């Protein structure tokens, strides 16, 4: 269910100190850990839960599974967020989503590609409805997508990677 990985606890200590080490800062700490590992490794959650006052591994796991932003599986190098909010939906986000799925090699039931390069998630609104349908890849916004346009975007990334 959760991936095992050797975790650098010094790095996590730094993150905890940086965020203030209080129980109320847990979400910020988890976000920073996820930035480093692209997901939340089990040992990192156990470490945070055992180390920080007032928390336990089970509580940290509870927070990590409560919020959709946290992933227990490694995310891809390129995180694709495809908006399926109302505006994007009516302007055709589903064909865009299907085009991404068709273009990339996802394992059955998983949303990260086999090579770990891409991961895909649908989000409910990115607050850029004027540009609908919107896709965000690693914080870069791609406005007014179509199924053809997204293929070009992905192909460009793949070319960059294969260089």
């Amino acid at each position: 269910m959760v991936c095992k990985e050797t975790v650098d606890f010094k790095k996590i200590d730094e993150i905890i100190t940086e965020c203030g080490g209080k129980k109320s800062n847990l979400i910020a700490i988890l976000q920073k850990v996820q930035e480093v590992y692209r997901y939340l490794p089990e040992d990192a959650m156990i470490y945070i839960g055992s180390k920080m006052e007032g928390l336990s591994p089970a509580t940290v796991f509870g927070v990590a599974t409560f919020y959709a932003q946290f992933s227990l599986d490694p995310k891809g190098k390129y995180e694709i967020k495809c908006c399926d909010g109302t505006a994007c939906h009516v302007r055709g986000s589903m064909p865009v989503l299907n085009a991404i799925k068709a273009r990339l090699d996802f394992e059955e039931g998983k949303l990260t590609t086999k090579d770990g390069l891409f991961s895909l998630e649908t989000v409910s609104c990115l607050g850029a409805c004027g540009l609908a349908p919107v896709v965000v890849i690693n914080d870069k916004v791609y406005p007014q997508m179509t199924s053809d346009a997204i293929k070009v975007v992905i192909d460009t990334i793949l070319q960059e990677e294969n260089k």
Partner: protein
Amino acid sequence: MSEDKKTLKIEGKEVEFTDEPNLLEVIRKAGMNVPTFCYRPDITQFGACRMCVVEVKYPNGRVMVNSSCTMPPEAGIDVSINSKRVRKIRKTVLELLLANHDRECTTCEKSGKCELQKYAEEYGVSTIKYPTLDKKEMLPVDCSSPSLVRDPNKCILCGACVRACQEYQGHAVLGFANRGSRTLVQPMCGKDLADVDCVYCGQCKAVCPTGAITVKNEVDKVWDEINNPEKKVVIQAAPSVRVALGEMFGLSAGENVIGKMYAAARRIGFDLIFDTNFGADLTIMEEATEFLGRLKEGKNLPLFTSCCPAWVRYLETQHPEMLAHLSTCRSPMSMLSPVLKKLLPQNFEGYTRENTVVVAIMPCTAKKAECKRPQFKGDDGIYDTDYVLTTEEFGQMIKSAGIDFKNIEAEECDSPYGQYTGAGTIFGASGGVAEAAARTAYYFVTGENIANNDILEFRGVDKHSRSKLIELDIKGTKVKIKVVSTLVEAEMAIQEIQDGRADYQLLEVMACPGGCVNGGGQPISCDDITIREQRADGLYKEDAKDLQFRRSHENPDIVKLYDEYLEKPNSHKSHELLHTTYDDKFKGSYKDVTK
């Protein structure tokens, strides 16, 4: 704030209130009740189950529906606990809970004691208008722990176990996972209970309103042994059992039913009846001697008591560096069992080590794990204690044996290894072990008996008595003793010791709040925090009034055992039989990761 008593109205009746923490307590004090699953007076209120909703009419005419467990009482409000509106809400809550509940009640361990079952009956839930749980959607049941069974299909997400684990043991082994309709209560990452840092104290089970967390029932196995003509089955019962078992048969909490219990055990078919209190007296002889030895040497102080298996497991998994402080004495149960297996064949005809089965009745779920410790197994593969049954399981046995427990005539237990002193009895309450040890240590040091047996500073099992510091004057020698219950308090004591702030020489720890009287294996009492006090009072009453001896070293059977076999406390023979070793189980624990 004025000291004047304030009033509010409940169902039209004027009710006074003072400092009750919430409306629900005011309602209960007024002799009424509202149903609840998640409210447990001893732990933080949560407001999760919405069963305790009441309709509140404010003086300005505003009417609101509120959960009474989270609402502070207010003067002048008019509370309806049975209005049409709130009854409808409660019934809907019940139907929704039942819709995705595994309703195989007849085969459920909690059947007959389940609060969900009880309220469904009281509120007449006959049909459920929502789609119900499909058999195929059932989640796996976790039977990995030697003590507890966790069935997520019966969980109603009241969170009582999560709060109990966090607030009593500081552990939160259990937590909520996921969100919305997929929410579950489980150990981290959905692991099994046996694979996490659970100490098996069973307080989660003690507060669970349904069959989601139950004891691992071994009653059938014990019946099989009793009905096996080749086996001689002997029984021992812990101090706290005698003041709680009666509750299952309509007797009041704290009523000492030990004589009835001996009689019932004979009717069930146990061959010989002994008492763990004898083991407790033995523990005091050994532990007091060990304590005085360490005091003299000044080594590994404070000495930690070792009667509580949850505490032992906590130290082994979380603080192996402190294991040297832990007394090498076994718990009373695990002292008496090897004595029985060793000496019964010499004293009784037809008994051999191989055919003797020792069953221990305990208020504790962690004891089920303790009896399976490799240290308590002989080289021949025979365990000292074969089965541990909780108070509740033993009550179930008595019921199914068709015994009229309320009216059964009291009997005596068998001798030797049955006679006990008041010091053994008070082991069941937090502070009791230390008080009993103090009585005997005083005698060992001075050669005379302590003037006053009732050292009241040790006593108290309520929420405010979870940490006590007592100073004793043994004819000029000053000894400081700390008594804690719950592992939260124990952890604070460990920190004190590690920081060099501790000035006491003995630390008594019981993992359950208030001690064994409130153990995880006792009949359900989480709704009423006074029950544990009544049980403790029952023990102190037996100590003060019913028993001939009140100090362990005066127990004639104990004296005889040392004369005839053990020689003297802490002798080579007693080390073989009555002492144990501990394992460093740090590796693989959560804390292992943090090192």
